């Protein structure tokens, strides 16, 4: 089974590589030292160990089973370890740490979690090794003329081991810290965004309830005024006031009804959605933001049958987000042009603003969830991501072009409903 290497696998491979490099250098150095010391049987053992490590190293190119390799190397290292003690008459070579400790650590190696255990094992092994080696010297088991050289080499090896492990440990710790910090920041911003989206969701539920509660009193006003109007002559001076009230009721009910479209609880993807109606509803909803700032230019196609099959509530949400974004891109005054065109079975909706535009770097990210250029707390970075998702769910295609300081154009292509062609 082919599996993609994960980050953890990569960590593990790098750890294995470091182990192997230190094993190669130490076994070679060790052999060279005893070669100079004129102890060929020990040199041979060192070379055999080196050859073994080379075999492991080469075999690691053919298998991903690192744990298996580690275990094999431990067993071999232990055998080599005891042969070594036997050959030197009880004295431990300082290089033995390289044979024993790294594979031993590797055996327990699960990236990061068990690092402390490795460090402790390493420390214990070193503490045991020194008295044993000292015992070898005092018993004159090593040639006295090599004592100094042996001591220097031993110190070098110990330092190299400590350096390797400190490096590994530090790096992992730093990485871990960074990851922790990153996930803390992520968590904080996600929490904020969740609270915000929860707010939006409850707003939806609330608006449905509010719509119902407002429609009843609107009904009182409309009914009451309607009855009053019946009792008036057409030339009565009060007629304009009645008209004003009726206009007010109609506008209020239009707002409430467009609010209702957003909080529909339907999940159906089979509804016939009138795109022009949806755009108009969105414009009503955004009226308070657009009013003194943005001139909306509508270039609707004359074709009456602009219907798309899908979920009306969701399409409202998608288009509202796009228009709302266009509005936010305009800082002082500007124009939003909304154009629809029908061709064959397809419908093209273009929403162009004369706003700040999007930089090329950010353009590729605008469909990413949580990507936002707004200050924290003002935008969730979910709006356009949701819009893109909804449009794709409707089999639509969306593309965005933008020039900084000139404006942005959203191009959406829908398939027209078969039933309404």
């Amino acid at each position, binding site marked *: 089974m082919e599996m993609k290497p994960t980050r953890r696998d990569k960590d593990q491979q790098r750890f294995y590589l470091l182990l192997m490099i230190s094993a190669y250098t130490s076994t070679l150095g060790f052999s060279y030292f005893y070669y100079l010391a004129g102890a060929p049987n020990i040199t041979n053992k060192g070379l055999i160990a080196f050859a073994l490590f080379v075999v492991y190293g080469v075999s690691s190119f053919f298998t991903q089973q690192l744990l298996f390799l580690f275990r094999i190397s431990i067993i071999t290292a232990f055998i080599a370890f005891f042969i070594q003690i036997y050959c030197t008459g009880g004295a431990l070579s300082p290089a033995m740490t390289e044979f024993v400790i790294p594979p031993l650590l590797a055996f327990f190696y699960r990236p990061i979690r068990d690092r402390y255990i490795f460090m402790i094992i390493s420390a214990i092994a070193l503490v045991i090794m020194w008295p044993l080696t000292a015992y070898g010297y005092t018993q004159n088991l090593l040639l006295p003329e090599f004592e100094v050289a042996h001591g220097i080499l031993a110190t070098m090896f110990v330092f190299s081991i400590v350096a390797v492990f400190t490096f590994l440990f530090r790096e992992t710790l730093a990485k871990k810290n960074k990851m922790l910090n990153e996930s803390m920041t992520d968590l904080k911003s996600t929490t904020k965004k969740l609270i915000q989206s929860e707010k939006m969701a409850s707003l939806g539920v609330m608006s449905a309830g509010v719509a119902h509660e407002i429609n009843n009193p609107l*009904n009182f006003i409309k009914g009451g005024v309607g009855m009053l109007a019946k009792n008036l002559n057409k030339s009565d001076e009060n007629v304009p006031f009645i008209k004003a009230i009726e206009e007010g009721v109609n506008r209020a009910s239009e707002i409430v009804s467009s609010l*209702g479209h957003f909080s*529909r609880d339907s999940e159906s993807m089979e509804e016939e959605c009138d795109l022009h109606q949806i755009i108009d509803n969105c414009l009503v909803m955004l009226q308070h933001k657009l009013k003194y700032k943005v001139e909306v230019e509508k270039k609707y196609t004359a074709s009456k049958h602009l219907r798309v099959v899908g979920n009306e509530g969701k399409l409202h949400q998608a288009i509202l987000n796009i228009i709302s974004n266009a509005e936010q891109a305009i800082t002082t005054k500007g124009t939003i042009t909304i154009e629809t065109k029908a061709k064959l079975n397809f419908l093209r909706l273009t929403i162009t603003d004369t706003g700040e535009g999007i930089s090329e770097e950010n353009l590729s990210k605008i469909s990413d969830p949580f990507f936002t250029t707004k200050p924290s707390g003002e935008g969730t970075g979910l709006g356009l991501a949701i819009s893109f998702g909804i449009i794709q769910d409707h089999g639509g295609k969306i593309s965005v072009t933008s020039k900084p300081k000139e404006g942005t154009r959203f191009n959406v292509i829908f398939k027209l409903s078969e039933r309404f062609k």
Partner: protein
Amino acid sequence: MTKEDRNTVLFVDDEEINLFLFEKTFEKDFHVITASSGPEALKKIEKNKSDIKAVISDMRMPLMNGLELIEKIKEDFPEIRNFILTGYGYNSELEMALENKLIDKLFHKPFEPEVIKDAIDNS
């Protein structure tokens, strides 16, 4: 116009003002009977069963909602036409009811008298 010439319509809503306004708005077009709850509506249908042509009910009411009421009416009096007049924009429950022909039409508050009049006259 006498009572016999006009269609009899039962209007159900838990808001007294709505009942009053509905009755007044349509007094020339229909003979309007009103009820302020589901159980009361059922009693009134029982009493005037042969006359009532249509029931227009609010959706959200205490004791029994509009659809529950209409389901009961449909069982015993299948010839009565049923309508819902609601302040809610959309609702999957209502959409289902429309699809299953439990209700003939859905009216929205604030209502347009002509829309209701046409629907009843043509039903």
